[in-house]
């Protein structure tokens, strides 16, 4: 990278917040997924420089500079996602958002909080708890992941069933978009948070996007993985911390029995805060981790919260539904222990030693067949696989299937990657969608958005990021370092070969 760019970046963020050290560049060239070296070689995953802006103004200056110089900018929060969203594809500037970590304002009366995008969910929850408040929903990666990261990716997790997608909880966003080249970094628009839009300005813009604004639409920044700009602040609705929480669990041998139960739970008058299914594969792996023999049992966990009265009514209704289904609840203490483990879906990784996984969002009425088919991958590939499904709305469930692998055995490990494709495909054949795209699932972009929405997104991309500097080479298509994208047919062929090898190696 041109040293003058580095020098100018250093002027913007200060010398303590920029690094070009070989160690740091190595460490900012990956995310949570253990991708084999053979694959990453198709991309220039090592960034040229890492910067840590402290304010939206600094972000804006960086984007201006990058846009002028046509250098990629890769927003990176906690890097807890695993689809390659924070991995550079053609080097460039990694924008580490760790310093945007202030909780700006909490309104107890109106029940909202305004945070910088790099605030970690758990920190936010702890701070709110001091005032008897809490968030509406959160990802199970709450101990590490950030508010901005979840807005930019999936947005479904614990609490979604009751309070909806993260998008439904956002009052306003502050975003910085790169604008066209020829901009002047010394003339930034003045910031006025959440009061309305800036007039269109050719330079890098700090925009305030509220619910209902037409242009830009807030939706453009939800789940678009840093393609259109950098989210710098989020105003979120929150709630009073519930007085009571009750956890209930039900076991069954037949997956379909539990899938039926789950369908009914979503129709309850007192909507559960969370409903999730852990299939027998996952339960077996967890028991194996504790050195206990497997049981062929699947588990549904349902969590209710609210006032003591509400929770009492909800659990009574739940017990009735369960008995109508002829199912047996598990001991409350066991259900509670399972709930305590909610932040640790990857515990079983120790058995791998590597853990790989695939994720898809599927129609709720297809949950039974989807889980059964995923289960059958165990036989097909002779591997140990376990699945967790979060019911996130009346109609949908996010399914995360995790399986054991061993990164140290390079060839065999490579073939294991094919299983991810199978998991996503099982979802797709049952009317589901990929849960995210990033780099590794960018081939599914059309399946995710459909033709019309995709065209709109492409138009938005052109308008907001005309020089294509924001997180390039993913989401819309997976670009290799040679400038050639990976087309679906090539991807499919490659995966078929790996899949075949995986069955017989």
């Amino acid at each position, binding site marked *: 990278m041109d040293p003058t760019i580095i020098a100018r970046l250093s002027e913007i963020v200060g010398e303590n917040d920029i*690094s070009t*050290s*070989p*160690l*740091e560049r*190595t*460490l*900012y060239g*990956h*995310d*949570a*997924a*253990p991708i084999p*070296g053979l694959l990453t070689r198709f991309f220039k995953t090592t960034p040229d420089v890492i910067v*840590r802006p402290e304010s939206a103004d600094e972000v804006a200056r960086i984007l201006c500079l990058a846009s002028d110089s046509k250098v990629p900018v890769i927003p990176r929060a*906690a*890097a*807890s996602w695993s689809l390659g969203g924070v991995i550079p594809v053609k080097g460039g500037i990694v924008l580490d958002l*760790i*310093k945007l970590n202030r909780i700006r304002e909490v309104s107890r009366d109106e029940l909202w909080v305004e945070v910088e995008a790099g605030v*970690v969910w*758990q*920190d936010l929850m*702890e701070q709110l708890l*001091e005032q008897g408040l809490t968030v509406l929903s959160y990802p199970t*990666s709450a*101990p*590490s*992941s950030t508010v901005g990261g979840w807005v930019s990716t999936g947005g479904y997790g614990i609490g979604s069933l009751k309070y909806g997608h993260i998008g439904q909880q956002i009052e306003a966003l502050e975003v910085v978009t790169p604008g066209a080249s020829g901009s002047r970094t010394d003339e930034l628009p003045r910031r006025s948070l959440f009061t309305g839009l800036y007039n269109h300005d050719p330079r890098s813009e700090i925009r305030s996007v509220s619910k209902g604004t037409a242009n830009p639409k807030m939706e453009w920044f939800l789940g678009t993985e840093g393609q259109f700009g950098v989210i710098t602040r989020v105003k979120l609705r929150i709630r009073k911390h519930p007085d009571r929480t009750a956890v209930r669990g039900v076991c069954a041998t037949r997956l379909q029995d539990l899938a039926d139960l789950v369908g009914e739970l979503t129709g309850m008058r007192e909507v559960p805060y969370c409903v999730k299914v852990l299939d027998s594969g996952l339960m077996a792996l967890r028991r194996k981790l504790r050195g206990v023999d497997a049981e062929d049992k699947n588990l549904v966990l349902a969590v209710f919260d609210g006032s003591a009265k509400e929770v009492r009514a909800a659990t009574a209704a739940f017990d009735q539904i369960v008995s109508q289904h002829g199912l047996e609840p598990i001991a409350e203490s066991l259900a509670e222990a399972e709930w305590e483990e909610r*932040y*640790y*879906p*990857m*515990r079983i*990784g*120790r058995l*791998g*030693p*590597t*853990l790989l996984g695939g994720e898809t969002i599927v129609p709720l009425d297809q949950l039974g067949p989807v889980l059964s088919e995923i289960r059958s991958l165990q036989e097909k590939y002779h591997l140990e696989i376990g699945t967790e499904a979060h019911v996130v709305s009346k109609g949908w469930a996010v399914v995360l299937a995790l399986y054991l692998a*061993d*990164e*140290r055995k390079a060839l065999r490990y490579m073939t294991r990657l094919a299983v991810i494709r199978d998991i996503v495909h099982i979802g797709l054949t049952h009317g589901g969608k990929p849960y995210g795209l990033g780099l590794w699932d960018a081939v599914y972009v059309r399946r995710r958005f459909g033709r019309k929405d995709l065209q709109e997104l492409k138009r938005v991309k052109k308008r907001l990021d005309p020089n294509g500097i924001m997180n390039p080479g993913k989401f819309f298509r997976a670009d290799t370092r040679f400038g050639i994208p990976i087309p679906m047919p090539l991807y499919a062929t490659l995966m078929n070969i790996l899949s075949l090898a995986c069955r017989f190696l």
Partner: protein
Amino acid sequence: MEIPELKRLDVEIEPWVCTQCGNCRTVCPVFEQLGWESASPRGKIYYIKRLLQQRPSRRNRMDDEFVKRIFQCSLCVRCEEVCQTQIDMMRLWQAVRADLGQRGLWPKEVQAIREAILSQYNLYSMSNSRRTVWAMMIEEQVLPKVNQMADVAYFVGCVAAFTGRIAGIPESTVAILDSAQVDYTILGPDEWCCGNPLFFVGAHAEAIELARHNLEKLRQLQVRQLVTSCSGCYRAFKNEYPRLLGEEIGIEVLHFSQLLSRLIDEGRLQFSQPREVTITYHDPCETGRHCGIYDEPRYVLSSLPGVELIEMPENRGQSGCCGGGGLLKATHPDLSLDIAERRIHQAIHAGASVLVSSCVTCRLQMSEAIRARNLDIGMYDISEFVAQFL
């Protein structure tokens, strides 16, 4: 590249089970100060994995910055508490530090500490005959106790023995022991460093002589119970010695806070000086997370007349670190004070006017930070604090 020490300490698998989820980043006191991936546990583990993936070649070398980062760690192992896959972080960091030692890559401060311990049997390169220097003002009370046959031995530890600023800790400890009429001995010049600083850098083999010597002396005096107010010595005797020697040491090891709790239960301590004061307890990493002592010190402190014990939000297994451990104080003193300052602010924010801990290093470190950063709170070791009520 090979890192044979991983095998020796039975942590070969650990770098591979890391899911890179980042939970450790949120709690790591060093990462909180520095904020770069290379300073986070997961960043270090990722790099270790990269090293293991390199084909052996003479051109392989450790990145200098990585070496620095490995010693930018207080071994508080808060990372272990939140780890998705429950990585044995302590052993992992020990193994990597040991490997760096074999490559001649230890920081000079670590080298100096090692040499001091091996040549003088104490941390500070002092003559070990001066082990009872702390008792200068109470020689008549203490010297007769040196090398006596007794059930109980008070293991003073290098830090308390040689650091004049905290001589109050051993002074208070013997005052309490006497008040409860405990028949105890101290080893005096025959007390050698417990070896904990060597364990911190995975130099187990070098610590073996120290362990054998200390245990032999204790056995000669027919000691059945060892008491120490140093959380590092406690950890060494309790965790490391049995592992190192491959057998139980045959002596009950108690932290002073545990003994205090027993003495209170047995009615052997009378507190005649009530004092209205709001205090909070800081869990030392080495007695807390490393050894699971959480209840006894709280029990002791709540038994003191007039004392209100309040908790900081980060307590017990989630307790913040004082920054003084893992040789961080020696290798990166400023960073270590920054960490202490953060923890002290938590105590002040909680509304305590006195901060009590049960570790000589925490006491030294936090008192220094309070002075250097002009903070307004009192700081005592549990022995010093309890002695005020006698």
